[in-house]
């Protein structure tokens, strides 16, 4: 995980407190993880339910 200082540098907002930067980082981190999960599931076809998968079988 990125350090607070690294995040502050990327944000370019030296006025933000450590706590604020940490909260931005953690929240965005969670969002990034969610999106990556979605990417994997979409490309793996795992987002389909077993019933949907079975219905597509010949």
């Amino acid at each position: 995980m990125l350090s607070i200082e690294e995040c502050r540098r990327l944000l370019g907002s030296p006025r933000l407190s450590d706590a604020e930067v940490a909260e931005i980082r953690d929240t965005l981190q969670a969002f990034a993880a969610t999106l990556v999960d979605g990417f994997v599931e979409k490309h793996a076809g795992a987002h389909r339910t077993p019933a949907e998968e079975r219905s597509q079988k010949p």
Partner: protein
Amino acid sequence: MQSVPAEAHAHPAMPQNAVSILRVSTKKQLNEGEGIENQRRGNAEYIRRRDYRLVREFVIAESADGPAREDFESALAQVVANKAEINVVVFWKVDRISRGGVLPYYTVKGVLAKHGIRVEFATEQIDGSASGELMETLLAGMARFENRLRVERTIGVEKILTKAGYWCRGAPTGFRNARSDGKPILLPTEDAGQWELLRAGLRKQLSGAFTLAGVAEEMRGSGLRTCRGNPLGKQTWINICRAPVYGGLLRGEWTDGAFVRARFDGPLTPEQWTALQQVLDGKKRVGAPVPRQQVHPDFPLRRFLLCPGCGRTARGYFSVGRSGRAFGYYDCKEPACGFRVNSADAHEAFVELLRRVRPAGPLLALFRELVLGAWEAKLRELAARRSAGRESAGGLEEEKARLLTLMKRNAEKPGILEELEQDFERVEGELSLARLGDGREEFEKYDREKVVDECVAAILGVVELWQTWPVDAKIRIQRLVFPQGIDYEAVVGNRTPQLSLLYAAIPGSLTATSNMAPPTCSVSNFWLIEELIRWYETLRYLPGRMPSEPAA
């Protein structure tokens, strides 16, 4: 219980029959040290000296201080059942009967005495004299005293160690016991895949976008096992999420209820674990459900648009003209305000406003870095799943084949067939999860930039999503960008819209058409992103509704 060696019976002159009871506190002690052998030698010597005849020997591995002493009570019951053949029970010492004090000691002795069976000790000579009785009482009391003293010392040491951040218990799921400078700590389990799965599950839970049951089921399907090697259940998962040790923290009776930073790390940081508790307690808002009254496919701005006159939320409705044609309107329920706009005009103006909403550049730079980190973590998780999945997939394949055979056999029995189909779906679901990791090589081929671009597109394409997604998604997007609702004058560009603090903290995300300063906003700084996670999660499972695949 063990049988007695044949030579122990070979004394035809012995008039009295004796039973020898040997006891240690734990099963581990049965095979370690001289505990049992020492007692056996002592009892045998005593029995030989008294010319008794040993008829039976019981070996018990059980605490003498617990409320339930099944093995000991079973041994006594067998002695009583054979009372006609038994005269005396021999223990090595008083503390082999009980460490619970005088009362349980005399209770045991009384039960045997009632059936005419004496109790004697190989190493402690207690007779029926006054001094013998005093000695007996003192020894029984001393046995309890020693036990309590040892417990207090142990707890005292463990309390000191725990307050200093060490771990004095068995390793919980995902960890293993270890030593650091001779003191007890925890380290990640040697199966790196299990540790990675645990970490991924906790982070997923932390996102606030998944239910406990959902993540528990996914972790179970992925092959996460408890510390005893059992499949993970929902309650175990809840316990894991709630246990401070998974955030590198200790808290309990031994820390006097205070949080102590452990001398080892957990799968989450202490800050992440604290945030997870807030998510689980519902204190950290991750998107409230859309109110039912607000949902109407033709009026997504209902209860969201604010009357420029009084600030109340607007109504949305159809008005049928004389020609019978319906026209959509938003208005204020207070007639004096005179606010009434055509819904189509309001939607068009709102789309124009959304086109100007963009997350700030610096925010995206950070977001890109975090997506890259998340992608690497995901690849590691997939590897862990594949490792665990290969083990479980074989068994699931067998179960699937068995269920298919049963379904064919019971094709004419709808009741049974329905149950079998449900089982089949469950097994297929678990199997697809178990196989998910098999695609790791395929995913490694993906260009990292492609992954990042796709994720960033989701955060950028707000206006496209608003136009194409269902009404509840529209409402979520609105609340995401303008959490306090929006004054109609701001929609049409006559006022500056009220922004969330995230946009205020990192300026440049929205170009206002007015020079007026934006009003302060009382909502949580990062409610916006949390809300984004919520609606993304809600929508991504809808067929064809992935952010990169807006519905046609």
